[in-house]
């Protein structure tokens, strides 16, 4: 009764043949997405560089995209991006790492299981919410401490970005540290080491590649973060290293220029793509570095 039931065989045979191909096509969509990104960015970026020389773009310290004598130097945006990401990492790296250490080495299992999901809420809060938090809470707070701080400045969004990235750094570092075998801890404790000495001289070095990868991913995240800086750092295209001032990042520039729906065909329009391309390359490099580190330096305990 069963074995004779041949009629469905042919149907399932067809599925059997086409499904791998269908799935391959689906899997290739992810590649197409990347190609799509690179292609859209590249084609308009090339147009841009036909108008503004490559060299001028990357060495120009003035960005004045509108008006009669427009200038397109990306350095103000690059410094804005780098400074905000650096500030973010100054917050996220120590606090994230210390959080990871606490959760992985000091906290009891119960505390760990309670704290971790709460921390992860921080990572899930929409960045727009952080943006207003930076602008309406952190900036006034900081201005009480640093009176010279401008109401829009790069410091406050930098700090808030750091807070947003803490859970990412903490979670990835904690994973790296938890995967150091327990016998390492035993080995060190048996020599009379305190918990801190075990952590600092054995666990952290052993988990270093995972920890560094988490930092690099955090930096990449900070570089790509948009709404926080857009809202809290204003739209001043300052070329400066003074963190109390308003600066614009690459991402915030893109938001400003696209504002509603960027006009096609102008230099301004092309500059959007040139900046986006620069941003894309930056984050891509960061991601590749992170992958390289975690692959290359994977510990074999």
């Amino acid at each position, binding site marked *: 009764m069963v074995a004779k039931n041949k009629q469905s065989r042919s149907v399932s045979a067809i599925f059997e043949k086409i499904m791998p191909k269908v799935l391959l096509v689906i899997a290739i969509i992810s590649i197409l997405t990347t190609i799509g990104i690179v292609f859209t960015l590249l084609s308009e970026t090339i147009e841009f560089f036909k108008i503004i020389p490559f060299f001028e773009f990357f060495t120009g310290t003035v960005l004045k995209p509108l008006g009669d004598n427009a200038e397109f130097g990306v350095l103000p945006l690059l410094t804005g991006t780098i400074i905000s990401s650096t500030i973010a990492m100054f917050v996220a790296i120590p606090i994230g790492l210390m959080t990871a250490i606490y959760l992985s080495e000091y906290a009891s*299992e119960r505390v760990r299981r309670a704290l971790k999901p709460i921390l992860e809420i921080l990572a899930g809060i929409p960045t727009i919410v952080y943006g207003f938090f930076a602008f309406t809470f952190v900036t006034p707070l900081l201005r009480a401490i640093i009176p010279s701080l401008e109401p829009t400045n790069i410091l406050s969004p930098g700090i808030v970005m750091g807070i947003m990235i803490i859970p990412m750094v903490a979670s990835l570092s904690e994973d790296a540290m938890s995967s150091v075998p327990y016998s390492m801890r035993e*080995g060190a404790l048996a020599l*009379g080491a*305190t918990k801190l000495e075990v952590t600092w*001289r054995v666990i952290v*070095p052993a988990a270093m590649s995972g920890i560094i990868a988490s930092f690099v991913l955090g930096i990449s995240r900070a570089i790509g973060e948009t709404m926080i800086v857009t809202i809290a750092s204003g739209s001043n295209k300052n070329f400066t290293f003074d963190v109390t001032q308003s600066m614009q990042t690459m991402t915030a520039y893109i938001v400003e220029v696209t504002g509603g729906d960027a006009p096609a065909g102008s230099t301004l329009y092309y500059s959007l793509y040139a900046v986006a391309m620069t941003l894309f390359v930056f984050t891509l490099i960061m991601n590749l570095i992170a992958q390289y580190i975690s692959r290359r330096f994977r510990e074999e305990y």
Partner: protein
Amino acid sequence: MTVSTFTANSAANTVKDKTESKKGMVYNTKDLNLWYGETHALKNINLEIQENDVTAIIGPSGCGKSTYIKTLNRMVELTPIVKISGDIQYREKSIFDKNFKVEDLRTHVGMVFQKPNPFPKSIYENVVYGPKIHGIRDKKVLDQIVEKSLRGAAIWDEVKDRLHENAYGLSGGQQQRLCIARCLAIEPDVILMDEPTSALDPISTLKVEELVQELKKDFSIIIVTHNMQQAARISDKTAFFLNGEVIEYADTDVIFSNPTDKRTEDYITGRFG
């Protein structure tokens, strides 16, 4: 040499080895009980361990050997659910005393584990880890410690040219001897070894066994082993554990040639375990 043997059923008594009173006593365990949550893992242990002896602890799997040896340096307390009653005196001080810091205890009492567990650092860094955390910074002194400890662990010749290579490049047996060297570097008084050779090949095992014989000149050694032959070969005294109790504790020759308890005999002759 006469030895008073001991069976666990008369648990309140303490083993005393009167003939060797010239030797000091490093550990004195008194009415020790230990629970993992509800599991009663050690029951009324009373044991005296002598200086410069190799004391072997044998018994079937799960009888509490590891638990006991980890209690001696209080590593067992890393498991949060552990509860302990009774006392252990190390050199006449209770190890559970508030003023006696576990870190101090563990500086006096080194430990070697079943699976070699070097740190993922260079050989040199492995050995100096202990001295460094205890505050020795002088490069010369550290170099001396490294050489002395590696020689002490009979591995100096094999690694002296590659001190700054990663310890993971060593074979299992070499790693275990490195762990012993790492332990020697803090110049302990007692060395605890929990089945130090069970993860090693026969040749490495032999080397470690020879090493233990060597080390007993300077250290008191307590060694857990599954391997009866090993216990017979290298130890002076043997304690036989069963279900968390010490069934018999005596000179190794006595235990192996003339055990008092039927269960000891059964175990030694391979009838269970």
